[in-house]
């Protein structure tokens, strides 16, 4: 909220409305963990006791998925859930982990090529690589300790938010670098730099499909998004739950050997969801 005294005789400005909304969201979500513990799918079903179509979809999900992990709804949920899912998918596998670390380090080139100064991103990149590296080392000695450390890292605001910031900057850099390919998909915004500044780099601004495509392509990571939308058609028998592969079906399949991230999407929010057989996904 603004600190200055607002003249009560005039209506609030767009910025004031937005600030107010953000302060409400913050007050509402700041008690929620940045990332929660794994919970069985039954916990999800409880939320939708009154809705038959949601319950039918969740019922269908239990055939292939065993657990969810909630992420704070602060506008950064996609980046945070994606990063944690990615680290979780690679840290115990030395080959995948080495590749992920290399990908992260090399991604700095993309930022530099579009003009990011290293002073604005190097600390965040270092946190991202240090965290993964520590996980890798811990994982060698004790997988259980590594799981606990992963959760703890993503619950620590400085660590968690630093990784989110880096992924936002990388998404922005990738979009700028390939702006000819992506500009046609920006509705009502003809300027890629302005889009990236206002809609990608800005902390707390939610992600759309174009962000998901850009980030998964920049990192070469397979992402599957399970859509839980409660659409009535979903309860028709035999209709599977909708799953969208990112960046697209071919690349998602091709990148799968480096680890697959699976997210649960409900309108306006992303959480992590865990398949029964992670290796067969």
């Amino acid at each position, binding site marked *: 909220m603004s600190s200055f005294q607002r003249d009560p005789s*005039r209506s609030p400005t767009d910025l004031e409305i937005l*600030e107010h909304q953000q302060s409400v969201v913050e007050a509402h979500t700041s008690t929620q963990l940045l990332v929660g513990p794994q919970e069985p799918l039954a916990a999800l079903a409880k939320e939708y006791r009154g809705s038959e179509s949601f319950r039918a979809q969740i019922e269908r999900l239990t055939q292939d998925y065993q657990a969810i992990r909630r992420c704070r709804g602060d506008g950064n949920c996609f980046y945070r859930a994606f990063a944690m899912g990615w680290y979780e998918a690679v840290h115990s596998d030395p080959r995948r982990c080495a590749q992920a670390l290399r990908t992260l380090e090399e991604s700095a080139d993309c930022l530099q090529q579009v003009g990011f100064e290293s002073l604005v991103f190097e600390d965040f990149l270092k946190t991202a690589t240090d965290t993964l590296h520590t996980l890798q080392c811990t994982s060698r000695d004790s997988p259980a300790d590594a799981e606990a450390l992963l959760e703890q890292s993503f619950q620590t605001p*400085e660590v968690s938010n630093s990784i989110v910031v880096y992924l936002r900057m990388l998404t922005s850099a990738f979009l700028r670098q390939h702006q000819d390919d992506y500009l046609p998909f920006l509705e009502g915004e003809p300027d890629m730099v302005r889009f990236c500044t206002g809609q990608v780099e800005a902390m707390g601004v939610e992600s759309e499909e174009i962000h998901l495509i850009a980030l998964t392509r920049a990192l070469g990571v397979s992402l599957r998004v399970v859509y839980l939308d409660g659409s009535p058609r979903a309860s028709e028998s035999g209709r599977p739950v909708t799953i969208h592969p990112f960046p697209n079906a071919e690349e998602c399949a091709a990148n799968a050997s480096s680890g697959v991230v699976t997210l649960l999407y409900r309108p306006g929010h992303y959480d992590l969801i865990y398949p029964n057989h992670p290796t067969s996904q």
Partner: protein
Amino acid sequence: MHPAHTRRLLKEIQDYHNEPSEHEGFKDLRPRDDDTITSWQVVIVGPRDTGYEGGQFQVTIEVPSGYPLQPPQFRFITPICHPNVHFHTGEICLDILKTAWSPAWTLQTVCLAIHLLLSSPEPTSPLNCDAAALLRSGDLLGYQSLVRMYTQLYAQQGVTSNYQG
């Protein structure tokens, strides 16, 4: 090991001194004294061909301990007539300093954004309703002369009367 905000600010200082290129939008960006690295000041230079031309505007910068994850606070000390600056408190209404902040901004690039704001006001989110009303009603002549008057009153070189509201 320095805390994150100190580490980042030290790099910004070094970067600013390594490239003392033409920052024609601002000058004298530096910590206010040697004791603290979190209180800064800068002089924003009035853009050419605007009512601010010839003006030198003192701005203070307070850097929170959460910087750069959290935005710095910029505030005009020299009174300035601008639709998006509060005339009495000097508060600046600029989305990147609030809801659209990103650690990709540095103190330097924010200074440039504020310099740009002087030539491209946003009358739809005013902190100075009189200036905004003139601009919105299309009275450019009235707006320009009001801006120029305040610039001459408070921000011309040699004038030291800072508004302390």
